[in-house]
């Protein structure tokens, strides 16, 4: 109750703070975003930034949205954290105190999240933080963490996809898998998640972790290859996948791959040398573009909006899932809650709804996103079969 009242008070203050008079006919709902947009770790943050930008722009060009009979437009405020917790903390404080923002997207990076977590927790109830950082998973549902929503699905758990993929792999007759991952936050967690799953499935697992930024994988590939595993389970961003897949196939050390992140592109690029390329994709854009008009429209919109001819299929999922859809989902929740500033109400709506945009997204009881995904299996020559999965 107290929470709500204080939230309401702040809301009142915020409205008072907003410029009065005819100059601004529409009220503004600000959407903050704290992501790394530059530096070696910026890939995720950069795409997320683009996703929000597109959604906000579209909604505003469509004349904004109406909540409880009032017209609103969106405003995106997205400083660059440079993957630096200090910057992020200051920026979050600016967003909450100066800009009176109540909805913040990001961060994707665990070190950044750890940096802002204490302050965010102090302000529990005043805002919503919707990010993808690995470390968020552990905080979900903890006391004073009602502000937290994780916009990514988790590999483990009953609605997670890890188990399902490993089972699929087992059906392919895999006996031994070699895991080659970045030595960073998610890499470390991925090892912790998948080791037991593989163990349970009776598949032997070898693990090697490499410094992010590595480009030549000859040594680890040779080392792993010596163990004669049937599948290679490489890192999780295309930044490394292109290099790993190429070097692994060129030397003929591996012809079978198993991915839980990243895209099909590295596989297609080396399709002649690949027997199996099994990938979990939040969405198989290449195919969806043909089938689903929404996706086709999104791809077109992206190209137009960023004036580019090449659509980044590999990173589109970040862009769309984590941000583009979630902006729409948030707006939808505001409409249903009939308020733009009672975060508790809005969260309740978010938790109870299923949003069908480019994907079907809902939140589980802890506040972690669950969405349909595709298990894509590419065979030699680039023949692709995709299975659409709707998790429990």
């Amino acid at each position, binding site marked *: 109750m107290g929470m709500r009242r204080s939230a309401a008070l702040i809301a009142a203050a915020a409205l008072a703070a907003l410029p009065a008079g005819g100059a601004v006919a529409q009220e503004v709902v600000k959407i903050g975003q704290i992501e790394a947009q*530059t*530096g*070696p770790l*910026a*890939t995720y943050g*950069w795409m997320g930034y683009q996703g929000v930008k597109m959604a906000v722009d579209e909604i505003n060009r469509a004349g904004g949205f109406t909540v409880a009979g009032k017209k609103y437009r969106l405003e995106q405020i997205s400083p660059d954290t440079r993957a630096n917790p200090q910057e992020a903390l200051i920026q979050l404080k600016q967003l909450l105190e100066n800009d009176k923002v109540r909805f913040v997207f990001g961060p994707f990076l665990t070190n950044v999240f750890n940096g802002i977590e204490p302050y965010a927790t102090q302000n529990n109830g005043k805002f919503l933080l919707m990010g993808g950082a690995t470390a968020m998973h552990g905080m979900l549902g903890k006391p004073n963490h009602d502000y937290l929503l994780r916009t990514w699905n988790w590999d483990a758990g009953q609605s997670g996809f890890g188990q399902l993929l490993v089972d699929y792999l087992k059906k392919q007759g895999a006996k031994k898998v070699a895991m080659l991952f970045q*030595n960073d936050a998610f890499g470390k967690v991925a090892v912790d998640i998948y080791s037991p799953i593989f163990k349970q499935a009776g598949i032997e697992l070898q693990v*090697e*972790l*490499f*410094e992010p*930024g*590595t*480009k*030549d994988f*000859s*040594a*680890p590939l*040779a*080392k792993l290859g*010596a163990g004669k595993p049937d599948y290679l389970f490489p890192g999780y961003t*295309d*930044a490394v996948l*292109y*290099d790993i897949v*190429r*070097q692994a196939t*060129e*030397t*003929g050390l591996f012809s079978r791959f198993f991915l839980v992140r990243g895209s099909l592109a590295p596989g297609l*690029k080396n399709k002649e040398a690949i027997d199996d390329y099994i990938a979990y994709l939040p969405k198989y854009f290449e195919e969806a573009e043909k089938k689903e008009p929404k996706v086709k429209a999104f791809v077109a919109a992206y190209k137009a909006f960023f004036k580019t001819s090449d659509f*980044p299929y*590999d*990173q589109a999922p970040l862009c769309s899932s984590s941000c583009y859809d979630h902006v729409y989902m948030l707006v939808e929740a505001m409409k249903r809650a009939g308020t733009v500033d009672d975060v508790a109400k809005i969260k309740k709506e978010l938790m109870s709804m299923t949003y069908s945009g480019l994907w079907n997204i809902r939140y589980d009881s802890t506040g972690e996103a669950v969405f349909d995904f595709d298990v894509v299996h590419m065979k030699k020559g680039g023949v692709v079969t995709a299975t659409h999965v709707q998790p429990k």
Partner: protein
Amino acid sequence: MAQLILGQLLNGAIVGTLYGIIALGVSLTFGITGIVNFALGVFMMLGAYAAWYLTDTLHAPYPLAVAGAVALVAAAGWIADQLLFRFTRNDLVNGLLVSIGLIAALEGTALLAWTSTPKEMHHILPGVFFALGLVVPKMKLTVFAILLVAIALTQLALTRTWMGRAAYAYAQNAEAAQLMGVHTGRLQTGVMVYSTALAGFGGALYASLYSLEPTLGSLYVLKAVEAAILAGIGSIAGALVGGIILGVTEGVGSIYLPLAFRDAYGLIFLVAVLLFKPSGLFGGRR
């Protein structure tokens, strides 16, 4: 196992020559202008993106693209020298900071132009060679050969041409060289441009082997500096060997030891060498 080691010796050597070509630039620049040009990393990055853009977007034949990339980067290097480095000659710290500033600026520009989405050039020369039970990608071997030739030619140029000898003399003893009638300013500019051209060349070849990101140079320039010091500043063959030693240490090191510490293996070696032969493996008395 022997196969494994042999393979890593070869691959380490190949990777090492790529360190070496940048190290050569670092070494020359430091020897002649007294600046450690960390910006060689971003020049390498520019070369890589230029080559990628010329081949994959403008569909120029790869060799032409490489030539174009080298020309572009050399020009960039000349501008950087005239606008910036000219004023920090023989000032280690300022040179270092100017290059840091340059890195920030150029990486930002690259991000604007190409975003952080990785780019990968179409495979120029697919396929592999089989030799004594080893499997080596054709392109890697080709790059290896080309780099070796480039470094050999540099060696020749420095020993046979007047400019080269002047440079050598200058590195040994500036005063004497000036008495010899060496035009310092022109020499230093020449070396600056040449070293950036080498970096661009390295980058252009790099693009045919690995995927590209705006930050790719930073790792390589660090390795290059390690290699240059390992070998001893001012030694051409040294820069190459230094690079190769580094590449091999990392390769073989990560076979026997945890891969996660790969970067440390080279460093430990470097520190050891510096302590017991401060002038580097091939450096004379300094």
